Structures are given as structure tokens and as C-alpha cells.
């Protein structure tokens, strides 16, 4: 767990900054500071939270916001199953620990539960703390897109992807997944392209 915490420390300011941007966006969607912090503490999945408040802010209503966010988080079912074997102990313990699974902790851990929990814990505090700061200081910060935080998300996922493409089948799967997502963006609800991209694994299996 200590190794994971050390791995995650460099990510802490970035995650706190992204949390702050979510806090600001939540205010613009008329979500109170407490609601924004509760959402970060329970949902703890950045892109889905930003998607939910953007739908609310655009007047899309609760149902559209909930469906969009849960579609974006549906990937945590296969992600959770892929790391499930490293979890031990009672159901309550595994349930609590499973909440620390996020894209970054899962990608950095590569099956090491201690690393996953260390990264997840550090990022949880950064995310929730950043959200509180952003929600309270919201108006003063202004437009978060001016700070390029949306582009920072894409850059971070690029770096995380780079750690996952060590062999030719994995490169092929990444390309297939990216192409599937790109093709579906115009035709499906947000979130669906990311889920559908899992179909890209077929390319990797065939190549073995």
C-alpha cells in the first residue's frame, strides 16, 4: 500500500486540480457544495461526474444525467472482474476496498492489490479535497476550460495507455478500441463508445 501511495503522490496535485474543476462545474449546474462533495466521495469517477453535471447544467434533467453517468461507469464491471482475484477477506472488506478501484489505480496496480489500495486512497483524498475547494471557491476560479483541464484529462489517459501497450496484440487491441469509440461517437449516447470499445479485445485474441 505504501508503494501505491508513493506512486500516486505525483498524481495528487493533478487529481486535486481536476476535482476542483468538477467542483466549479457542479456550481454552474446549481449543485450545492455539499452535493458536489458527496458525489465525489461516493461516485469517485471523474468523467462520469463531469458528464452528469454538464447534462444537468444544460437542462437535460435527472434521468438523462443519471443514465449518461452510469453508462460512463459501466466499464467498472469488467475492470472490477479483471482485478477481482487479488481481493481477499470478508464481503464487507472486499466491498469497501472495491470502491478504491478507479482508472488510474487499476492501471498502475496491474493486479497488485496493495498498490491499487495505496493509489486509490491518495487519489480519493485529492479528488474529494479538490472538489470541496473548487465548489467553495467556484465563482472566483471562473471558466475551468480556460485552464485547459479538459485537455489534461486526454493527456493523462494517453500516458496511462502508454503503460498498457507493451506487446503487439495489446497495441492492436488499443487501436481497435480507439477506432470503435471514434466511429460510435456521432451515433450513440455519451459513454456507449467507451463500453463498446471492449469489443476491440477480439483483435488481440485472434493474434495469439
Amino acid at each position, binding site marked *: 500500500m505504501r508503494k501505491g501511495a508513493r506512486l500516486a503522490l*505525483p498524481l495528487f496535485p*493533478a487529481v486535486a486540480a481536476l476535482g476542483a474543476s468538477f467542483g466549479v462545474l457542479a456550481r454552474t449546474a446549481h*449543485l*450545492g457544495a455539499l*452535493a458536489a462533495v458527496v458525489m465525489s466521495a*461516493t*461516485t*469517485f*469517477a471523474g468523467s*462520469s461526474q463531469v458528464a*452528469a453535471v454538464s447534462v444537468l447544467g444544460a437542462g437535460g434533467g*435527472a434521468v438523462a*444525467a*443519471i443514465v449518461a*453517468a452510469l453508462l460512463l*461507469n*459501466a466499464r*467498472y*464491471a*469488467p*475492470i*472490477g472482474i*479483471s*482485478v*477481482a*482475484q487479488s*481481493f*481477499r477477506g470478508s464481503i464487507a472488506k472486499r466491498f469497501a*476496498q*472495491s*470502491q478504491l478501484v478507479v482508472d488510474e489505480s487499476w*492501471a498502475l496496480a496491474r493486479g497488485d492489490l496493495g498498490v491499487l489500495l495505496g493509489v486509490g486512497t491518495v487519489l480519493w483524498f485529492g479528488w474529494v479535497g479538490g472538489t470541496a475547494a473548487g465548489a467553495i471557491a467556484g465563482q472566483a476560479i471562473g471558466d475551468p476550460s*480556460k*485552464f*485547459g483541464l*479538459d*485537455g*489534461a484529462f*486526454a*493527456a*493523462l*489517459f*494517453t500516458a*496511462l*495507455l502508454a503503460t498498457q501497450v507493451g506487446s503487439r496484440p*495489446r497495441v492492436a487491441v*488499443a487501436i481497435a*478500441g480507439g477506432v*470503435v469509440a471514434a466511429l460510435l*461517437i*456521432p451515433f*450513440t449516447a*455519451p459513454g456507449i463508445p*467507451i463500453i*463498446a*470499445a*471492449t469489443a*476491440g*479485445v477480439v483483435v488481440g*485474441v485472434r493474434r495469439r
Partner: protein
Amino acid sequence: MSTGWLTVIAVGVGTVLLKAVGPVGVAGRRLPTAAERLLELVAPAILAALVVVETFASGRQVVADARLAGVGAGVLCVLARAPFWVVVLCGALATAAVRALN
């Protein structure tokens, strides 16, 4: 209940359950080798999709905007073996700079 709180609670409960499915449902049990191989390949597929969506998607539209500069800076940082926080900082700065110039 307000629209905001309804969304917060429903998304929170749903996400908590989605994250728990694997670790609570199949912990300690070994999956068939073929399934394991398949699940190992889920990582690059989903991360690539996240890169594409976070870079090019604006709702249902495919757009090339300032975020492209952020990804470009991210790629350069990865090639230079920079730590994650440098990647994020460069990605934000490049995106903000291009956006300011437009």
C-alpha cells in the same frame, strides 16, 4: 428531493454497485484462462477509447479543438518518460495556450 440530489444519490449508488460486482462477486475464484486473457486485454481497449473520447468528442460531435494540443503535449511527455504530473501539467498548459490563441 431536488434534481441535483436525485442525480448525486442515484449515480453514487449505481457506481458503488458497479465497482463492487467483481471484487465481491468473484473474489478468490479463478476464471477460465481464456476469460483471463480476454479481461487482460480490456485495459488497452478502454484506455484507448477514453483517449479518443476525451480528445475528439463534444457531445455526439467529433471535433478537433485545443484538446488535441493537450494530447500532443502528452505524447511528447510520454516519449520523454516524464512523470504523470508533468504530463497533466503540459497537457493543461498546451490546451490552454492554443485555446487562448484562438
